[in-house]
């Protein structure tokens, strides 16, 4: 039984014996939520998505949708649709036939299909593209058609597998906003996969950080960014510095993001270090420091500072409220 809208129960999956891609994951998702699975490639996020879609069977565990066990249902028997990473538009069909494909299978009348296709094209702002073939579309347009095609079926859940991965940065930012707008408008549950933490933070209600087939942390973007529970989350999401707590008089392992490290060139306050390198990019000065025990940390600040030179002694400190203890003193995960 499950009382959530969508629930994953103890999913396990391995492709080669002994090597688990998913090591037993649990997740509850509410109706209308925008949940992002965030992780580097090979962490198991695509497999999770494919199991929800029904394209892959878990070795053990189950998938529940609206209180029903759908684990053994075929992909065509689930109210779940997918936007594939490479769009997977049918090359031999035009845009209208692509979008109307799911409806045609459901034996919806031709007139209704035409109406729905038009509606969908308006939704993704591609009016008048009905007769185009996928080969005649740009990357961004293909992306929109793929979304329209998946949404035309009125799915309960929309799965998106790195849908913006192939687009350039500018278009990506625009599409992020548009996707978020769509999701709010339609109120459909979105499960989104990405390896880009900015994308995850910009769009999601909740983020699930995945690593090696496990969930590292589940939380709102704020929780994930500001209160990482593990050093993995801290480094992957916040590009944080990880250092031993004893170095700064704290317990366990401590994560501090580079912008929270304050440099004192007069060596009055805090801990001493040696400047190894400095680098200026995108309005930010990044300074690589070597601590007394050999740990390297990065400090960043806005604006250029010509006084800091490699090799020089420097002091650094931080506000205690900006430091996060990610592991306890025994090295166990909290």
């Amino acid at each position, binding site marked *: 039984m499950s009382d959530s809208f969508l629930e994953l129960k103890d999913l396990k999956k391995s492709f080669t014996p002994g090597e688990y891609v998913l090591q037993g994951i649990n997740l509850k998702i509410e109706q209308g939520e925008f949940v992002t699975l965030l992780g580097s490639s*090979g962490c198991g996020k695509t*497999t999770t998505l494919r199991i929800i879609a029904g394209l892959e*069977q878990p070795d053990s565990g189950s998938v529940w949708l609206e209180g029903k066990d759908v684990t053994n249902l075929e992909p065509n028997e689930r109210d779940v649709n997918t936007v594939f990473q490479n769009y997977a538009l049918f090359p031999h069909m035009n845009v209208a036939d692509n979008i109307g494909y799911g409806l045609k299978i459901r034996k919806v009348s031709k007139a209704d299909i035409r109406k729905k296709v038009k509606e969908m094209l308006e939704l993704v702002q591609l009016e008048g593209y009905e007769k185009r073939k996928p080969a005649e579309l740009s990357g961004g347009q293909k992306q929109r058609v793929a979304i329209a095609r998946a949404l035309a079926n009125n799915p309960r859940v929309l799965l998106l597998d790195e849908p913006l991965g192939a687009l350039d940065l500018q278009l990506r930012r625009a599409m992020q906003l548009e996707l978020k707008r769509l999701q709010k408008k339609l109120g459909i549950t979105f499960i989104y996969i990405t390896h880009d933490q900015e994308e995850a933070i910009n769009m999601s209600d909740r983020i699930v950080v995945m690593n090696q087939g496990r969930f590292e942390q589940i939380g709102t973007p704020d929780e994930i960014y500001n209160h990482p529970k593990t050093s993995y989350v801290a480094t992957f999401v916040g590009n944080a510095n990880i250092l031993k707590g004893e170095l700064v008089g704290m317990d366990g392992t401590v994560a501090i993001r580079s912008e929270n490290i304050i440099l004192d060139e007069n060596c009055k306050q805090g801990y001493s270090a040696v400047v190894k390198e400095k680098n200026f990019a995108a309005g930010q000065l990044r300074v690589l420091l070597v601590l007394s025990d050999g740990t390297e940390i990065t400090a960043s600040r806005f604006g250029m500072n010509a006084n800091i030179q490699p090799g020089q002694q420097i002091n650094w400190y931080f506000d205690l409220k900006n430091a996060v203890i990610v592991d306890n003193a025994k090295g166990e995960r909290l």
Partner: protein
Amino acid sequence: MRGKISRSKSSAKHTHATIGMILPLYIFTLIFVACPLLYMVALSFATPGEVHGVQWIFTLDNYRKILEPVYLNTFVQSFQLAITSTLFITLIGYPFGYFMAKLPAGGKKKAMLLLMLPFWVNSLIRLYGWIIILQKKGLLNFVLKKLDLIQKPLKIMYSYPAIVIGMIYVLLPFMILSVYSSAEKLDWSLVEAARDLGASKAKAFWTVSFRLTLPGLLSGVILTFIPSMGLFFIADILGGNKVVLVGSLIQDQMTRGNNWPFAAALAVIMMILTTLMILLYRKVTNAKEVEGLG
């Protein structure tokens, strides 16, 4: 990574559909390709009975029989013919493939088309054309006589040279294509470099071009050598009954000699030889890839 994932275990219904798709191929291949071949092997160890009957008594006599001078001679003759044909094919085909690779892009395309076209034409028709040309009262003799080069007509048809001509004609494209494909990949700046470093034209060819096209040449040799042992109809049409090849012998034992187990034994030996050749071919083409990387 993704490709692997997407191809892994899927739902039961999907798997059933997939099995349904492969089943016809599995069944057909097992019954009509694997079984007949196994049957041939079994047959080769059986005792010939009366009038293409077979007695299922194990014997090695069929293989022993191959060693009899008459039949061994057939193998030797087949080999000789294969070697002779392959030699001529190499002499004609290697320069052809090499020169073809030196043509400009457009010329290459045209030459390729001209080369592939005969592949599609029934080899019987092409051989038949040679009969018209080579026969006693044929075109060649007519022309030679007109030019006063000969008094008496040449007897080329139904002779050894006619068979060799037929073999060359049918198998030449294999050699050309093989040499061409390796010469095409040749980095011509290497030849220039050799010349620049003081090599003569011949020396540059020998030390660079020839070395680098050798894999193509070798695979061409194997590609022509294998079939030239089995193309019995060439010997049949152009050679009369002058040369008996293994292929002709098998056909004869099956249809007239009525000794099927012996035919099977001959076929098994031929299969083994062919397989060895194919393995050799694999090795050579693999070597080619390695060289391509280097």
